[in-house]
């Protein structure tokens, strides 16, 4: 599903150049449930952004579902994101002025799916995360765990091949974290590849494979 070969990435400012990724080789197969671990500054978020086509890499090769992802235009990147990927963020990143249902339906809007079907599907996915009754609530009327579940429903609705989650439990307490992880497990059982960035050992333990990063390099297990 995902193959990385010698991925390098550095952030350049006017005077300094900071190499964040120093040659990552990585394979993630379809249906994997992977966590990427590492301390702050190890490059794990950068790696996830590259995987999510939100950020570009300098050298190396990244193939997603057999397609080489290199030098994409913004429009192409948007297309692949919409087609292959679902995102879950630490700070949920729901649009504050849209209800839960509208937030979930948003990716389908960019897939040009008619409004009525969007609404129906959004309700269906909200039900999957157990929030059907909260469909018309705004994000600030919901708890952190509920918001994250809405975000997961939003990531799932475009039927992605891969879900990328950046510290999805970082803002949640232990119990809610475990609830959220349960949902990820359920999703994974349906064959969707899940990649989670975390620095919490107990979260990483719930995944099938752990990738550890240290100072921009992969640490062999």
């Amino acid at each position, binding site marked *: 599903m995902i193959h990385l070969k010698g991925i390098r990435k550095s952030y350049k400012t006017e005077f300094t150049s900071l190499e964040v990724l120093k040659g990552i080789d990585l394979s993630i197969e379809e249906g994997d449930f992977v966590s990427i671990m590492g301390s702050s500054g190890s490059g794990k978020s950068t790696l996830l952004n590259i995987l999510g086509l939100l950020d570009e890499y300098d050298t190396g090769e990244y193939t997603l579902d057999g397609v080489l992802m290199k030098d994409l235009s913004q429009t192409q990147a948007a*297309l692949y994101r919409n087609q292959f990927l679902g995102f879950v963020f630490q700070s949920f990143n729901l649009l504050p002025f849209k209800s839960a249902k509208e937030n979930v339906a948003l990716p389908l809007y*960019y897939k040009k799916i008619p409004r009525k079907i969007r609404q129906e599907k959004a309700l269906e996915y909200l039900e999957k995360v157990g929030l059907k009754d909260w469909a018309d609530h705004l994000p600030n009327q919901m708890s952190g765990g509920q918001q994250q579940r809405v975000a997961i429903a939003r990531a799932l609705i475009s039927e992605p091949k891969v879900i990328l989650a950046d510290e999805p439990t970082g803002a949640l307490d232990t119990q809610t974290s475990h609830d959220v992880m349960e949902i990820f497990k359920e999703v994974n059982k349906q064959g969707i590849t899940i990649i989670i960035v975390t620095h919490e050992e107990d979260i990483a333990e719930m995944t099938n494979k752990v990738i550890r990063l240290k100072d921009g390099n992969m640490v062999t297990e």
Partner: protein
Amino acid sequence: MFDYDKWQEIFNTISKNKLRTFLTALGVFWGIFMLVVLMGAGSGFQNGVLAMFGGHAKNAMYVWTNRTTMPYDGLQAGRFTQITNDDIKAIENDLEDVLEYMSPRLYVPSTEVTYKNKGEAYEVRGDTPYLLKIDAIDLDQGRFINQKDMDDRRKVVVIGMEVAKNFFGKNKKEEAVDPIGQFIKIQGVDYLVVGVVASDRRGEDATEDNKSIFMPLTTAQQVTNRHGKIGWFVCTINTNYPVGLAENRIKTLLKKRHRVHPEDPRGVGTDNVEEELREIMGLFNGISFLVWFVGIGSLLFGIIGVGNIMLIVVKDRTKEIGIRKAMGATPRSIVSMILLESVFITTLAGYIGLVVSIGVVYLMKIAAGTDVQFFLNPQIDLKISLGALAMLIIAGALTGLVPAMQAANVNPVTALKDE
């Protein structure tokens, strides 16, 4: 082309960010509102002042005589000159190329005019048929003096509206009578009323016209026993010829004929409407410059305001745009979203501004009515208003474009980090 979904998305965003929308709209609204109201007020003022001239021919000039102040050609100063029929003929011959209409007048000394048992002192003038073409009076009923009246020195009169109302109007005792065909007495002589005229001027000038009685010049010359003599005359000059030039030619001619010193400031007096009009027109040019200056200024500020707000909006929405991009929004869809939003808001606000300002100008019109001097019938040039609106919308789109492009290029990673 109409994308219902897109509009739904835009309405949704607009309605949930009311303050932002309101601030954007306010700048546009104010710009167009100020421009239109100023234009309306300016035109109202202009119409008001022009209406004081009424239907006066704008190319008319007046000529009269008075006492000389300089001795000349063996004649003493202080002599009174008198315009005659011969002078009129000489002028008509000499200025044939530029003269349009000529209407000499002779006043019949103030006297009581009576109809049955009613009597009042009115101004009685001997005039020619051409007066109707020159003076600010309109025929209301019947006919005006004609050439046959002139030739036959008929005892016919045309009366002003006030005169007609006073003599023939409805009052407590009597029903209204058709003035045409009635006889009124001037200096004990019967005159047949053949027409009624109404003044086209305003205020006191109108009252003066409406309280006048017009008879053929020849008749007036006869009844006052001043055969061939003229009190003064008014004439109009072809519009492509400067009135001032014609004025000088007539003055020189008359001075020569009456042996008045060419340098004498008196002796022959003239005046023309054109000069007066030119001065007032100069004032209007000033006012209209001011209107445009202020109007375009406020329009410009409206546009800058829209651009400014759009910049803030994009800043404000960086995170939202980041999320949308992560959800698969293409740069194009981001640009079109922000542009459509700005165009929609400017169009709507501009339209409301247009409607409200037209309403205000209409209220000004009603409030001023016809009684307020200097202000009449304010008008809005719809073409200019719509042009200004179009300009505002295009400018709104252009000023929205830069921030929209910026927004489209927002890196989702940075946008989402922006906590």
